[in-house]
């Protein structure tokens, strides 16, 4: 048994923790697993391929009841937990947040400050293909950009996998499900597909942790990850580094803008 499995099994045996969410080997990629018994824990793995943002389960009432739950997640899970905590969406005493270091040992976070410290020092480098794609689009003329996004996003079937995969898309009633007023047509149509993405990005702005799960979840492999990444870069340019993820719910009197005159 690996160190992760041993530790997880021990935690479940102690009894304080009722379930552990982690990764197991899937057919192609690792996938989430919910361990209820020490035997389940044998399947737990952790490597670079473990991409799923497990924090998406932490706001689901049907999964998280009143029991204490352990999570063995990657860097982005930890970052998302901080964001969810700052937005008062989760109680940290209901969770034991863990991650795995390079040597395969489990790191357990006792409080939010430890998580913040870890996140500050372990940020993974940005995906170079994503950066290259953003640069390519930036170099296009405005008409080309519009044509590009219109073509790409008109393929969207509006399955809302991007919404489901995102741990920070937790609204009980999504703007696209509301029909009074109906801001967006909920079915697939060229313009409302674009408007849906604009809404998704605007609602994520300053909160997005950059895990890229929206793009990974897209069954049509649309480049929607570029939008969140670009928005993150723009926000970094305008307002500085990700600190507590509340860029749009706060302001500075001296915000520098160059378009209002």
């Amino acid at each position, binding site marked *: 048994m690996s160190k992760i499995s041993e530790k997880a099994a021990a935690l479940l045996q102690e009894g304080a923790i009722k379930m552990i969410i982690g990764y197991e080997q899937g057919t192609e990629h690792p996938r989430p697993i919910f361990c209820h018994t020490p035997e389940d824990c044998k399947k737990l793995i952790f490597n670079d391929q473990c991409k799923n943002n497990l924090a998406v389960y932490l706001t689901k009432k049907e999964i998280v009841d009143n029991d204490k739950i352990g999570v063995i997640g990657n860097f982005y899970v930890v970052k998302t937990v901080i964001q969810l905590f700052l937005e008062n969406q989760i109680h940290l005493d209901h969770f034991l947040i863990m991650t795995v270091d390079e040597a395969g040992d489990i790191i357990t976070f006792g409080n939010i400050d430890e998580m913040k410290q870890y996140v500050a020092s372990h940020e993974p480098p940005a995906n170079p293909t994503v950066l290259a794609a953003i640069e390519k689009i930036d170099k296009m003329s405005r008409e080309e950009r519009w044509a590009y996004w219109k073509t790409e996003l008109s393929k969207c079937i509006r399955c809302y996998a991007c919404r489901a995969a995102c741990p920070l898309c937790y609204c009980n009633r999504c703007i696209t499900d509301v029909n009074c007023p109906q*801001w967006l047509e909920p079915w697939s149509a060229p313009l409302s597909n674009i408007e849906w993405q604009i809404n998704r*990005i605007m609602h994520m702005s300053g909160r997005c942790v950059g895990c890229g799960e929206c793009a990974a979840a897209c069954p049509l492999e649309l480049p929607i990850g570029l*939008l969140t990444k670009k*928005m993150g870069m723009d926000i970094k340019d*305008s307002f500085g580094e990700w600190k507590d993820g509340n860029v*749009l719910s706060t*302001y500075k009197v001296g915000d520098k803008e160059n378009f*209002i005159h």
Partner: protein
Amino acid sequence: MIEQNNNNFEPRIIAFVCNWCTYAGADLAGTSRIKYASNVDIVRFPCTGRIDFMLLLKAFAKGADGIIVSGCHPNDCHYTSGNFHARRRWMVFRDMLNFLGIDVERIRWSWVSAAEGAKWADVVNKTVHKIREMGPYTEYKKAAMFLEKEKISYE
């Protein structure tokens, strides 16, 4: 020369303004008998912070060629911080629109106070002039009308 000018095109401008400053400013422009372009339809909001970005997109989808968004000057907001919050949102929104290839040049952002009737007239005139040169904004409308064309009517 006259034939080359697009005389038929009259831009349709929608102005989203805050109740306390720009709306009062537009009112002042009226009571001061300042003449300005009549292409603008003013929509009054309680505060610039209330102007949802979806409203701008809806305006484009429904046929606006240009948009004016205006409110109180910084530090003058009736609700203390509405325009500061709005300003941040617009900074993000503008970058996003630009990345998606939506024409941000057609949206004019401005601060117009209740005392600036003349400035309001100037903002409207300049915007109308600019949009008249840019021509009608058809790209967005076309995408919006896509399904209309595909619609099958059952008698």
